[in-house]
């Protein structure tokens, strides 16, 4: 029951807020018990040749049934205007649980000296994050609910402030990120982490690939408002195009790149044409199915795709004809010999880094450009109101199709790059989780915000790479992120919308 219902249901006598909050907390306790008693309390164990067995974990259930209702109690009090308990409880539980969990993650002995509710350090951290959520909600409450909520003007002003903050941040961060990205490989050898240069640059290559994919998907989801859950299918098309063309026809990376883009775009058109007339949620599920379909075909079409083993020994990227090899065939140059350098495996990594950086920046540039063209405006208009678009004589299917195809094209480019970096492709790289990951990046960054997407990619891809302990929980966090962002800040972290054309040069302020 929402509190709104509660309030209207009992208008006459003023209920005791502590009792009410306690009631809510009890309901939550029952619910948490139901949710966790089997799923968490009993862990099934499957081992080879043995019948299924289980072990118990009731301590975790117990603590979940204590902590979550406590949080609910604090939130319930906070809703009634009692912010202090939530502020204190939230921050204390955050500091304690998060701290203990971090000790545990770090493998410190302190983990055992402090009592901790859950064995798994990460679970303590997750509950700690719940504490900071309560704190944040209460803090927000103290600022806004003091006089019985915001007026419309205040809310609008607040939104404007947050938008202008996002605009300023994007304005500063955008060029800064590009600058840092350009010089990082050059400065790495002179930094204290010079030993890890190669690993760092490789991680950055991975991040940039996702930045590019995020920007590509942003055209489809952010601008045109089409939820594409099979984006990874186009990535796969690009990757396999490069793999096939290079291994069988001997084409090099630069020849394959446009072909991969075109092929992926045509797949986008082929898929999009029948389904783009449909409502948004149908589109989402059809693309979801399509992503899965491509994967099944890749696994089963043994002769063409190599089945589950994929395609191996794909030629690696070369420097416009000069290979990055230790030794060249007689009479030819390698990259190192041509430039008179000592051979190093890092050369290829550095080159890959700049290739993906340029590809990503091209994606960004084209997107920004497209947004200001009639097609981009039509995408955004379609996102806002399709019916009105039709009344204005805009062909909705074709307009959506272009967004779909252009998004697919960038995924094709990225896929081609991926194949040339990896040297092999297999269906395993193109599962639904990848699509979900890219979508999470776009959603977290802010649909339509270029800088936001880049930051989200750094956060969501880079962080688990740096902290290996997180990688098990990575997808759990992605799921939580998507839900939380939709609940709290549906337009993303850095959400602002700059008009594509302005009458006055600088924003007209009221």
């Amino acid at each position: 029951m929402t509190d709104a219902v509660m309030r209207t249901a009992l208008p006459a006598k003023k209920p005791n807020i502590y009792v009410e909050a306690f009631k809510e907390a009890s309901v939550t306790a029952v619910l948490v018990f139901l949710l966790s008693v089997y799923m968490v309390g009993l862990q099934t164990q499957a081992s080879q040749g043995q019948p299924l067995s289980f072990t118990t974990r009731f301590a975790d259930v117990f603590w979940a049934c204590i902590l979550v209702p406590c949080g609910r109690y604090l939130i319930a009090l906070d809703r009634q205007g009692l912010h202090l308990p939530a502020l204190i409880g939230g921050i204390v539980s955050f500091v304690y649980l998060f701290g203990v969990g971090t000790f545990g993650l770090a493998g410190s002995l302190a983990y055992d000296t402090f009592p901790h509710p859950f064995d798994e350090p990460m679970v303590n951290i997750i509950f700690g994050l719940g504490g900071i959520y309560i704190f944040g909600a209460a803090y927000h409450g103290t600022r806004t609910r003091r006089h019985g909520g915001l007026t419309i003007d205040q809310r609008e002003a607040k939104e404007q402030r947050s938008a202008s903050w996002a605009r300023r941040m994007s304005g500063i961060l955008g060029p800064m990120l590009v600058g840092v990205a350009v010089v990082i490989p050059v400065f790495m050898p002179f930094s204290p982490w010079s030993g890890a240069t190669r690993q760092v640059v490789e991680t950055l290559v991975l991040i940039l690939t996702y930045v590019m994919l995020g920007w590509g998907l942003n055209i489809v989801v952010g601008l045109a408002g089409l939820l594409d859950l099979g984006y990874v299918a186009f990535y796969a098309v690009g990757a396999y195009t490069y793999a096939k063309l290079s291994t069988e026809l001997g084409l090099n990376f630069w020849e394959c790149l446009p072909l991969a883009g075109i092929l992926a775009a045509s797949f986008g058109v082929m898929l999009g044409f029948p389904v783009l007339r449909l409502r948004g949620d149908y589109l989402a599920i059809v693309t979801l199915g399509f992503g899965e379909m491509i994967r099944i075909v890749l696994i089963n079409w043994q002769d063409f795709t190599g089945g589950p083993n994929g395609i191996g020994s794909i030629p690696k990227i070369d420097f416009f004809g000069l290979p990055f090899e230790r030794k060249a065939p007689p009479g030819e140059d390698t990259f190192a010999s041509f430039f008179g350098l000592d051979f190093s495996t890092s050369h290829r990594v550095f080159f890959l880094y700049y290739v993906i950086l340029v590809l990503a920046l091209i994606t960004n540039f084209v997107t920004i450009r497209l947004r200001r063209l009639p097609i981009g405006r039509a995408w955004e208009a379609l996102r806002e109101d399709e019916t009105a678009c039709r009344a204005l004589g805009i062909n909705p299917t074709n307009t959506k199709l272009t967004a779909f195809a252009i998004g697919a094209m960038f995924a094709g480019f990225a896929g081609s790059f991926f194949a040339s970096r990896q040297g092999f492709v297999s269906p395993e790289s193109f599962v639904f989780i990848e699509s979900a990951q890219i979508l999470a990046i776009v959603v977290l960054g802010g649909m339509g915000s270029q800088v936001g997407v880049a930051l989200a990619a750094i956060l969501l891809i880079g962080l688990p790479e740096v902290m290996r302990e997180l990688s098990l929980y990575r997808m759990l966090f992605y799921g939580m992120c998507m839900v939380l962002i939709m609940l709290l800040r549906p337009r993303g972290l850095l959400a602002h919308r700059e008009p594509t054309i302005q009458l006055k040069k600088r924003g007209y302020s009221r």
Partner: protein
Amino acid sequence: MDWFPYFLQQLINGLTLGSVYGLIAIGYTMVYGIIGMVNFAHGDVYMIGAFQAMIMLLICGALGISWVPAILLLMLIVSVVLTAAYGWTVERIAYRPLRGSSRLAPLISAIGMSVLLENYVQLVQGPRPKPVEPLIRGGFQLMGGGADNSFVVQLGYMQIVIVMITIILMGAFAMAIGNTSLGRQQRACEQDMKMASLLGVNVDRTISLTFVLGAALAAVAGMMVTLYYGNNDFFMGFVAGIKAFTAAVLGGIGSLPGAMLGGILIGLIEAFWSAYFSAEYKDVAAFSILVLVLIFRPTGLLGRPEVEKV
């Protein structure tokens, strides 16, 4: 008539599978009918139902309960109750706060919920598939198997149980929706949520109950699949979810008999496709049907056309 025994066997298998899809499809169709969104997490709710039933089965084994009807009843009750709690929670956390917001927000939240549930189960129950010992073995031998060594047509007891449970549940469910005040409130909310709330229908509660009912039926489907196939993993809801959604669309989204009909058709198509064409591409067949239906008959077999309000 050489083909007939083989055909009959596929028919039996298809109907069994179709019952499962039909039960899941009802969850999609009801939610779509009432709030007009695809509950992407529904497939995962079904997966959770399967896990809860599996754990209950293990507990029965540990407690030494061996009377099959008792085990079935316990599995049914426990998995329905516990999974319904998941259905309720999903709606409460991920969808209710977003009611009335933009079109995309609940969809993304639903995807997030789906990813969250899958990975939660992976973390708490481990990533490996869980093999379950079949509880009910054997069946009737309908045809063949004589001296001529012809194709044996088997009708397993488990298959009978599945179809029977589905029919009973569907009957009960149709009566419940048709004759109770909950059913009326649901239909009122479907027509016009604002007006229904003005007339005193508790819209929040009605929607929650819709999710609870959908989850309960999905839990039954999960339980049956656990007993029939006996190989549960955290990802099982993904493909089953898409297929059940296909079933709901095929039958006409928003229509309860449509969902059941669609489920059975998808089950049959899958069984026959696997038997006569290729088992590897059976999922591709289901998705192709989804696309074809959406192109040629987006209202499905039993759905009513939507009139766009301008």
